[in-house]
């Protein structure tokens, strides 16, 4: 009989700490449990506070995507106030949001995902020495470059909104600041600098050349085409991953979710860069995104039980920490769409958006961790041009407003949905008597790292771990690749995070 062992794997280089339990047979993962080790109780902290306080408190859920939480909070309040946000404010908000995405995508790839290739576990890999030179934390050439370059892009958010992280410059009705022309010009210079670095180092080619990569065979040809392509971070990811057999790993359920980037200015040339919204199941059937189809389950989560799932507008977050039933193992709830677990993030958005490259890769290779990471690393190639367009449009419209006055925040219910760096983020808010009566948040990592639901179905990265070979349980880099390919942000999982622990069995 095959020996089955249970093993707890702590994972770092994710935002927050994560611990995952896997069951192994013949050194392969046959089952997995992802559980949050931290409960910060944000949703309960919000109740009773001032109507606009979500703009200050919720960015502080997450140091790496605070602007994204701010945008979700502001959009929920826009909806409650029933206000039309002026085009320039939408442009400013979107520019700041995508600046945060473009630093996050690169930092996660170069500082968190790729350093695994420099692990001693790959000492026999033909590209190991190169990986060490490039991605050793704080010493590798590419790590140093990423530290130095990514921070420059964030200066755009500071110019437009005061600081990064944790500003509150998006307010119901627009933004708090009317940037003068000269500051918009400064943003344009910063963006140009970052784009040139991204092209030179991360892609190894111009954005225009990259946009011509429209199929799996195009991608192979691109890699073969020049040393610059192969030496770029994108090229190295593909070269190393292929020789390590990583295209076989990290599959998952194959259901994808994206809430899109729904706020586009009425008048803009950036339309083609909009994020797609929708849900696509593993059979390839697509449907429009409808927030009413979202429900959270708590069967495996340390919260007071209720049957099935609840829509976040009626959600409750009542901690109930007990291991007595043996069924509950996470501070994370289990969000489901149409009662299905769904992967969210750059790959999901690309597939729902019918991107020819990623649809072709999906057809050829099936879902895997390499394409998930490739979607993230190359996403700025789509975002940077949109930012340029919005900045240029603001520069060309200095007399148009950035704010529609909201004299008074009325009572009401609203939601703000946004495609965050890591996927679909939603804030559901209820204001009563001028105070927050209910605040429920579902983060991308809540989707991707969810525990089992009330039908006992695994969450996306639990499922993606199945079949992963683990050569050395003391250094389980393979499990790290799978989970890190989702860009986990554990601090975001507000009522989750990390791994709730049962005794160590390894």
């Amino acid at each position: 009989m095959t020996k089955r062992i249970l093993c707890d794997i702590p994972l770092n280089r994710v935002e927050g700490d994560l611990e995952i339990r896997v069951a192994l047979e013949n050194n392969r993962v046959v089952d997995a449990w992802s559980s949050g080790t931290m409960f910060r109780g944000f949703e309960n902290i919000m109740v009773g506070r001032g109507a606009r306080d979500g703009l200050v408190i919720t960015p502080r859920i997450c140091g790496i995507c605070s602007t994204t939480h701010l945008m979700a909070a502001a959009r929920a309040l826009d909806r409650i106030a029933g206000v039309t946000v002026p085009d320039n404010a939408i442009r400013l908000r979107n520019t700041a949001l995508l600046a945060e995405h473009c630093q996050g995508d690169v930092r996660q790839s170069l500082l968190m995902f790729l350093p695994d290739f420099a692990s001693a576990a790959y000492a026999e890999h033909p590209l190991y020495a190169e990986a060490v030179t490039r991605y050793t934390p704080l010493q590798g050439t590419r790590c140093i470059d990423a530290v130095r370059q990514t921070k420059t892009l964030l200066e755009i958010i500071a110019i437009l909104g005061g600081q990064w992280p944790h500003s509150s410059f998006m307010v119901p009705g627009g933004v708090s600041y009317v940037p003068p022309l000269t500051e918009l010009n400064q943003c344009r210079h910063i963006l140009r600098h970052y784009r040139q670095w991204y092209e030179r180092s991360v892609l190894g080619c111009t954005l225009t050349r990259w946009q011509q990569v429209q199929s799996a065979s195009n991608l192979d040809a691109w890699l073969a085409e020049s040393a610059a392509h192969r030496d770029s971070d994108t090229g190295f990811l593909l070269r190393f991953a292929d020789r390590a057999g990583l295209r076989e790993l990290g599959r998952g359920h194959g259901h994808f979710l994206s809430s899109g980037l729904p706020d586009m200015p009425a008048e803009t040339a950036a339309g083609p860069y909009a994020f797609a919204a929708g849900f696509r199941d593993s059979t390839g059937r697509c449907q429009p995104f409808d927030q009413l189809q979202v429900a959270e389950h708590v069967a495996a989560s340390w919260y007071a039980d209720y049957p099935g799932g609840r829509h976040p507008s009626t959600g409750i977050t009542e901690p109930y920490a007990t291991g007595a039933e043996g069924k509950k193992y996470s501070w994370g709830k289990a969000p489901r769409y149409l009662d299905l677990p769904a992967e969210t993030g750059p790959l999901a958005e690309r597939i729902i958006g019918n991107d020819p490259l990623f649809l072709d890769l999906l057809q050829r290779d099936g879902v895997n961790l390499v394409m998930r990471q490739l979607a993230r690393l190359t996403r700025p190639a789509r975002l940077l041009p949109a930012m340029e367009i919005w900045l240029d449009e603001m520069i060309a419209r200095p007399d148009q407003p950035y704010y529609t006055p909201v004299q008074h925040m009325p009572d009401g219910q609203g939601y703000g949905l946004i495609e965050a760096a890591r996927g679909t983020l939603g804030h559901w808010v209820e204001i009563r008597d001028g105070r927050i009566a209910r605040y429920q948040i579902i983060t991308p990592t809540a989707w991707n790292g969810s525990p089992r639901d009330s039908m006992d179905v695994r969450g996306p990265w639990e499922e993606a771990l199945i079949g992963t070979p683990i050569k050395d349980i003391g250094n389980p880099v393979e499990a790290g690749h799978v989970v890190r390919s989702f860009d986990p942000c554990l601090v975001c999982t507000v009522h989750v995070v990390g791994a709730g622990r049962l005794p160590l069995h390894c």
Partner: protein
Amino acid sequence: MASLYWLQCGGCGGDTMSFLGVDSPDLIELFDALDIRLLWHPSLSAISPAEHDALLARLLSGEEALDILVVEGAIIRGPANTGMFDARHGRPKKDLAAALAARANHIVAAGTCASFGGIGADDAIQATGLQFLKKEAGGLLGKDFRSRAGMPVINLAGCPCHAEVMAGALTALVAGQTLELDEFNRPLDWYGMTVHQGCTRNEYHEYRVEEWDFAQRGCLFFHMGCHGPLVDGPCNKLLWNGRSSKTRAGVPCFGCTDPSFPTASPFFETRNIEGVPIDLPKGMSRAHYLVYKGMAAAAAPERLKKRDTRI
């Protein structure tokens, strides 16, 4: 060579993200200049879980010296003082923080959560700072705690902590310099001035040219809930990301460097009686304030009343 262990507790990672943006020197140059050996940082380190466990064992046994412990995020004591809302390997992280603190020469609290409890200090998670719970000395380690070098926990408050403050504090500690601290153990070089100092809206404040709504140029103190004149911090001296500050960009200061952050009263509103703020600029007497601001408003130049002066 100075060894540094960075522990993340109940926080958002924002102090790390802020610190990654440090400029002149940048992070790489700073660690090189100070000869800092980063033993562990949760977002950056690549050692295996087994190696990390072995490192912790060496630090806790004293086999390996720990020069600087940086703690980011609040110490979570809930539920019911067990600390199990924030666990590592099934054990409360608060115990690990205390054990590492007992071994460290210097302890730095990165940000308001680690300093004073911050987000969650009034809530079920029972968040506390390392040596303060809001304004009350004590916290996790107790008010009399001293590090191996004989220092209290250095509180680098702010949500997040400013990158240059972290870099400056590490530089001083490694150089063996003494940082002069205020009553909340925050270094006076950065917390001996109000956030208001250096705000480009100062002239509007001076003449009481008040703003009631966003996207304007006037002062945010009187109606928009700005804490700039009330709390200490270097935001408008150092600037953020080398570029600007919240108040310059029309966002009221929320007082995030103060031990009482986040206060219970709603943000974006100034508590007032008959139009006079209840909380007056630091050290100001009410009688003087009324006379001074009455005269100042009457003397306000037209260019300010018309919001002609740029910010």
